[in-house]
């Protein structure tokens, strides 16, 4: 089963993402910040990482950088969930090694479409 790691400090958004992904048949691991995300990613290989940017403890950009430094996550798709409409965060995310992004607010359908686009 395809396993996705969802990292967001907002409970409601994380719940929405997790619920939506599970409904679509994905196996989902949750984390509330970058530190927890990194730890869970290390604990078990996932096929896709979705991460928020602004989080306490460790932000999403740092998480992307840390993940990319791991051999097992060298090519794993990592999507950044950002509310930033500007290009700053996108560029920052990509410089850190993110695959792409999904701009908040997004609907469950948009989320699934994006995930499918990455995972095929």
């Amino acid at each position, binding site marked *: 089963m395809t396993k996705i790691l969802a990292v967001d400090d907002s409970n*409601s958004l994380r719940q929405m993402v997790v619920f939506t992904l599970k409904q679509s048949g994905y196996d989902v691991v949750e984390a509330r910040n970058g530190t927890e995300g990194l730890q869970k990613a290390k604990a078990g290989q996932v096929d896709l990482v979705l991460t928020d940017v602004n989080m306490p403890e460790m932000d999403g950009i740092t998480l992307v950088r840390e993940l990319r430094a791991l051999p097992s996550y060298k090519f*794993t798709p990592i999507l950044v969930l950002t509310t930033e409409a500007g290009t700053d965060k996108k560029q920052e995310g990509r410089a850190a090694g*993110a695959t*792409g992004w*999904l*701009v908040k*607010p997004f609907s469950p359908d948009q989320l699934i479409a994006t995930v499918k686009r990455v995972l095929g």
Partner: protein
Amino acid sequence: MSIDISQFIQTFLEESFEGLDTMESLLLTLSADDSESIDAIFRAAHSIKGGAGTFGFGEVAHFTHGVETLLDEARAGRRLVSPEMVTLLLASVDCVRSMLVAARDGTTLDRARVAAIGRDIETSLKSGVGDQATSDQFAKSSAENTSRQPSAERNGWRIVFIPEVNVMRSGNDPLRLLQALEEFGEIKVTCHTAGLPSFDDLNPEECYLAWEILLEADTTRDSIAEVFEWVDGQCELTIEPLSEFTETMPQENSKLHAHLDVPEEGPGSTIQDSAIVEKVAPTANRNRGDSGSIRVNTDKIDALINMVGELVITQSMLGQLGLKLQSGTNEQCIEGLLEGLAQLERNTRELQENVMSIRMLPISFAFNRFPRMIHDLSESLGKQLKLKLTGEQTELDKNVLEKITDPLVHLVRNAVDHGIETPDVRVTAGKPAVGTVHLNAYHKGGNIVIEISDDGAGLNKARILAKAVERGLVPAGQALTDEQINDLIFAAGFSTADAVSDLSGRGVGMDVVRRNIKALGGSVEILSREGHGSSFIIRLPLTLSIMDGQLIEVANQSYVIPLISIVESLQVQQDSVKSVAGRGMVYRLRDEYIPVLFMQELLGTYIGNSKQLTDSLLVVVETEGQRAALVVDDLLGQQQVVIKALETNFKKVAGLSGATILGDGTVALILDVSGIISLSRHNLGLTRSIRTEEIKAA
């Protein structure tokens, strides 16, 4: 697939209110160089904006965006955090809160105020040092989005895609991009392999291929560019209408083969930022109100699940024993049955404790509103105030917590309005200009104690007395103790405020405060020293529905004494009983003399000289600092009892706080210890006259 996002709205609202509380409390203690707090405030605003957009609260998202931008500028050091900005941000917090409350409860929103604050934020953004581009971003991006209509270009597109060798390092797979294009319509893909090195030089982690795609679809350039958005800058990309391209363009094809095809437009220039600012349709039924949810630590839930597991094991064990017993009794079975029942009792008790603890919340939920209140009051009253909070983690029942909040607000308001003096008065009195209000909570016995203290003027006894006489609450010239005078402020219709200010004179008097506290089974006491300040001490039960009780027997009836009021139980030592003229009997317990109360008389169930005093048992109880020794006929045992109100089923009876149903189905009345003690004062004469005879006889 359609997912009903309304199910997450409750969580969104809860976390947003929490976020607003965080913003508020951090703003109140914010200093200009506290980047960590500014970061945390920004994150809270950011989360609210993100969630609001997702869950269909467009107005909230829009409003919060301005707030977020201000904070972002402060975070980036482009804007100084001035007191004016803090005030504006606090007002914004209020606005967002009122918007969310209005959305949740379906109440009307003060749009004029929201609009005014919104304008203030706009003005602030424009006047500030921050760059204005970001502030307009939101509006612009949404406008862009709506104006972006499908173009008239038809027939199809030719796309040349030459990724950089390290494109896969970002997790992007060119194959997926091609699959995404396929969704628009039929594609014809030519893969160019000229860039492939010799096998020895081939690095499997790199991409040496290039693609030419002919897409026959009725789509726009923008939507194609969007597919390649994530690899913008990591590839060379040409998108041109098929109509402008003919397959007979050999020179270009050869360029492509050599990977030399540099499109006239620079790489990525065709790719625009496409902020997806699609509006999520608002959910139809947002007005679901507060369903009264509670946030519970997962540890508590785990413990609960564990406990239920134990209960199931015990149940199956008892079930098996039941079957065995059916086929004939033997001693072993009975023993096992008793053991099982003991286990069941343990399980039930632990389960009950666990369930009760779910309802327990830290009092900080009530305390958290005060920093803001003090901040606002200090501005509106021209007083300098400091708030001290201690014991915020003290837990109490959610129901009690909710009901105590209003009385607390009232008491804190009073402390500031009537207690704390203006700075000049304070300085003249030799006190620091800044007045302190201290809220403290702690557990004592089975109670929670909340103290509201101030270092203000204290209660003015002469004025209180004069007012009370004027209002006809006490007859003129009557001598009252300090305590009784202080108590007068709790009388209905009592108010000493010189003028009806914004704070007092709301029609809620101290009598209501006391009534509310009493309704919770609590009490309130005042300690005051003129010129030095006052303390209001509230005592509350931890929970309202279950308590530990000691079963006693008086005149063949069972009663329950709350275990928390019992100090000890003992056999009467004849030589410790003393008769005090005019004050009934006292019992000498170590070095203390305690009044003796005969329960048979007090409860009106005197059945005569059934037992000698020396054969009786004494239960020493304590409440509100007073002790008493209750003479009971027998001690029966301890158990937890579920409290049923007498008022709802019968009527209020002095000396009783309720009733409960025992295991055998009989009703036992629960004694109200403080009620019993005050009852005894009225009955003292009677008690003494009956019992003195008996003591003498004994």
